[in-house]
């Protein structure tokens, strides 16, 4: 059984201590209604569609890490792997909405959906228009695309919606930009070790020596198989095959690649994996437009990675992905 070793204070203060540290280090963000978990951009742009995300703590830089220039405007912060409350989402929305409506953009998880829907109903009462869309890119989580979990691929939805909003798009257009990214993104992930929720103090499951879980979710949801650890080349091959089985990308078409570390995997390993993925795409004549490597959606100290492919549907999407952004956790020039 793995021992919990974390740099923290009392486990029950994990989330709020983290938030205090983030606010202290970054004047670009602030909190609303005296609630640390109502995370907002400090200066909003009047007339811009406000994009709000939310979800559990434990996935940095997901979700709050994308609040910043040309990306997202606010985030409801839940407990570790828990949903934020409807009230927190409402408070964030009221703080950051700028007269052009609100897009709720978050991951496909039941608790989050219930709370975001409730928040939308309350905001509607106050004549704040909302639209909602969830990321559901984890192909191995379910055969039915509407049930799939949202994982690292939401990054592309944030980029496209964020760019469209920054460029003056209205709520319908910003939603459409997010939808286009969603339609063209798929992810496969795998874990080598579990993670530990601070207040629980031990992992919820075990992976034996030399064992990995293919298709595991970012909250430790079981994968499609547990078995011996495969090589980077094998994992790249299996993952790219699963993705292309689900989403056709023709030879000559372009994709962006996202190699995402789950929290405890070194950059060395991520680049090895990235090289393997590149080879799989080259062999199929699929052009790689951009490669993103790093931590985009983690699971605390889980070792493992996910591979996302985002098919470039058109020039507009390409420009949106290229648009420079600046948040406390992610900067793209």
């Amino acid at each position: 059984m793995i021992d919990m070793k974390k740099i923290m204070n009392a486990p029950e203060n994990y989330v709020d201590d983290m938030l205090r540290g983030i606010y202290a280090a970054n004047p670009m963000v602030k909190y609303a209604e005296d609630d640390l978990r109502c995370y907002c951009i400090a200066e909003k742009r009047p007339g811009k569609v406000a994009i709000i995300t939310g979800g559990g703590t434990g996935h940095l830089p997901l979700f709050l890490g994308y609040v910043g220039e040309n990306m997202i405007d606010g985030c409801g912060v839940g407990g570790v792997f828990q949903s934020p409350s409807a009230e927190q989402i409402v408070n964030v929305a009221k703080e950051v909405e700028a007269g052009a409506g609100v897009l709720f953009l978050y991951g496909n998880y039941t608790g989050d959906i219930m709370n975001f829907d409730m928040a939308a109903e309350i905001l509607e009462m106050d004549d704040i228009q909302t639209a909602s869309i969830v990321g559901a890119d984890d192909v191995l989580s379910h055969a039915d695309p509407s049930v799939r979990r949202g994982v690292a691929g939401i990054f592309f939805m944030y980029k496209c919606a964020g760019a469209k909003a920054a460029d003056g798009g209205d709520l319908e257009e910003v939603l459409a930009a997010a939808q286009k990214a969603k339609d063209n993104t798929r992810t496969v992930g795998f874990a080598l070790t579990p993670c530990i929720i601070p207040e629980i103090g031990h992992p919820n499951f075990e992976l034996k020596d030399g064992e990995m879980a293919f298709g595991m979710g970012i909250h430790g949801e079981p994968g499609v198989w547990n078995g011996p650890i495969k090589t980077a080349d094998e994992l790249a091959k299996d993952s790219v095959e699963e993705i292309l089985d689900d989403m056709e990308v023709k030879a000559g078409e372009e994709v962006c690649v996202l190699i995402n570390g789950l929290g405890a995997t070194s950059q060395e390993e991520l680049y090895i994996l990235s090289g393997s993925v590149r080879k799989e795409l080259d062999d199929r004549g699929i052009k790689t437009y951009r490669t993103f490597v790093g931590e985009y959606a983690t699971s605390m100290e889980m070792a493992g990675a996910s591979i996302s492919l985002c098919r470039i549907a058109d020039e507009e999407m390409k420009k949106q992905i290229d648009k420079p952004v600046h948040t406390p956790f992610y900067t793209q020039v």
Partner: protein
Amino acid sequence: MAITEIKAEELPALFESVAEVFEEKKELLCQMDAAMGDGDLGLTMSKGYGALPQILRENLDADNPAKMLMKGGMKMSGVVPSTMGTLMSSGLMQGGKMLNGRKTIGASEFADFLTGFAEGIKKRGKCDAGDRTIYDVLEPAQKAAQQAASAGASLPDVAAAALQGAEAGVEATKEMIPRFGKAAVHAAKAKGVEDQGAVAGKCLIEGLLRYIN
């Protein structure tokens, strides 16, 4: 003393009665839930409805019961974020929404509130009649209430009709097989036993009727 209408300022007191009933039935609901779930239903209902009166007091909006109930429901969901807590909150929100534009709650408004409550549960819970849930009590209750209201019944009589509908609903759940929640795992034990979520729905109506009478 029977009343003919409920004003927005009275909503906290209305739900004090509901909280009272849930406090009285806390043990019973926990016991029922222990057999077919995780044993905390009584605690959740007491906690949620126990907090609701104060939430409503802090969000008083004279002449706007709709807004009070919608906000109250939303804030209650933060207090009891479990499935049943969320369903009750959703019921309150949709019930409140039905009262949009009305300044007080008379006989027909009360029926509409119950109609909305049932709708809210159905929408959020994605359940239907026969699934052996709280919806199987709220749906017949709202139907009975609407029937009475259309016939011109007084507020107390509409509420009494709702309770009758609720009681029939609870009885009917004895023969249903659970599809949702932790009860679904205990499907084999379900026959002949009232569903605990349904009983909780009946408690809600009992509490409302208690204030109205």
